[in-house]
């Protein structure tokens, strides 16, 4: 991934900046320019998600693609943020610990890197929220 392609998504990747439609009240992540509900009548504003939510479904991945740099297996999940939208993300936990309905909170982590000399890509993963 080239530097600009990663750099321009930093607000959403690092800080979960998404969108809220002021017309219908729906939240969106990743950010969108158009509200699919209201289309031209929508009014999208930036919104920072609290970063808490729950696991809707998950899988433990044993065979990642070539670009994968992390350990394996790892847990991938669809997390429903408390404001409503869902996102695909990694949950840092033992595979046996992952469960549908598990509460999670966001953490800032390394996601990938562009070879030995390229950029390191950071972003958001989730951890079990035991509080």
């Amino acid at each position, binding site marked *: *991934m080239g530097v600009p392609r990663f750099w321009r*998504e930093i607000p959403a990747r690092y800080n979960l900046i998404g969108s809220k439609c002021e017309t219908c009240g729906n939240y969106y992540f*990743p950010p969108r320019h158009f509200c699919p509900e209201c289309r031209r009548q929508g009014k999208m504003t930036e919104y920072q998600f609290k970063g808490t939510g729950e696991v*809707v*479904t*998950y*899988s*433990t*991945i*044993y*065979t*990642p*693609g*070539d*670009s*994968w740099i*992390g350990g394996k*297996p*790892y847990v*991938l*999940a*669809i997390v429903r943020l408390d404001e409503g*939208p*869902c*996102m*695909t*993300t*990694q949950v840092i936990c033992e*595979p046996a610990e992952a469960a*549908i309905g598990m509460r999670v909170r966001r953490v800032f982590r390394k*996601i*990938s890197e562009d070879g030995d000399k390229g950029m390191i*890509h950071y*972003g958001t993963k989730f951890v079990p929220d035991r509080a």
Partner: protein
Amino acid sequence: MRDVAIIGAGCTKFGEMWDRSFRDIVVEAGTLAVEDAKLSGEEIEAMYVGNMSGGQFVNQEHIGSLVADFAGFASTMHIPSTRVEAACASGGLALRSAVMAVASGYHDVVVAAGVEKMTDVETGVTVDALASAADREWEGFMGATFPALYAMVARLHMHRYGTTRDQLAQVAVKNHHNAMGNPRAQFRNEITLDTVKNASMVADPLTLFDCSPITDGAAAVIVVPADQAKKYTDTPVYVLGAGQATDTISLHNRADFCTFGASVAAGKRAYEMAKVTPKDIDLCEVHDCFTIAEIVAIEDLGFFKKGQGGPATLAGETAMGGKIPINTSGGLKACGHPVGATGIKQAVECVEQLRGTAGKRQVAGAKIAMTHNVGGTGGTAVCHIFSNERRK
């Protein structure tokens, strides 16, 4: 709008074809279709080629020109040739494009082809290339692979409806059994529930045998106006319905992860155009890129109620001789899944079934057959309904 018919169909052997190139296999499929239709080739006015990712699998774009060139249609005839892409639904979409070109009256004799050459790169590259059918920025970047996305569908389907590990495995067992009767299939061996369950884990709960393979292959059909079909063949297959639909590219943006809205919509549009209902369908080739995908598909297309796909599969209702035979070709799982070719291969299977020439896998008395071709995790779906009888 004119009614449309298929007058010729051709398909290569599916599998790892290390001695054959991208252009070799697509030209072979096209030649088989042209010979099947008893054309000289000069009648052909246009071509649509479904291909997901020549760019990533063989570093080749500009597929329309390449295929027309090596099929002999470019340098003197200069026919319009268009590459069509909708990830794993590229083939189905190429057929729909050809059908629309003929139905509109724009062209009379059109080739719809599909091709993918997937074994010229290492497996890890293939995994990454297939992941580009999902949202690269917000699924792929986050570590999602294709099996993992379908595994998350499976996990939720099991949680919500009680779908079992055995029910999923039975999809693969049945499709391997069906492929035994298909000389073109990549895998022609029986497997058992234990084969699936004891295979190495890819993305929990899906094992290697829940996943369709990496395959080279190509297929082609020739479509003409229904009014002209009998001029070429005694056994035309009529296109009664065609439906296409989209949904969000990301699985996570759907309202429900246990149903593919695009499959429901594409199926409904095809049924309405064909003026038939799910009960009228004699056999269906569905997009079983993973075992869970077949279970979701047979529910979304209305053959079984939501949540009943798994029990119906284990009870044999989707096997040969069952209520509705699903994937008589062996499906993506056992016939193989050269992604861009799959949608056309499904149509070729329906043509052979409706002509009564499907040999050991023939569904007796088949009159109406259906295809269901999905791109990504349901971002695109294309359905076609065919019959050996013309629309009344």
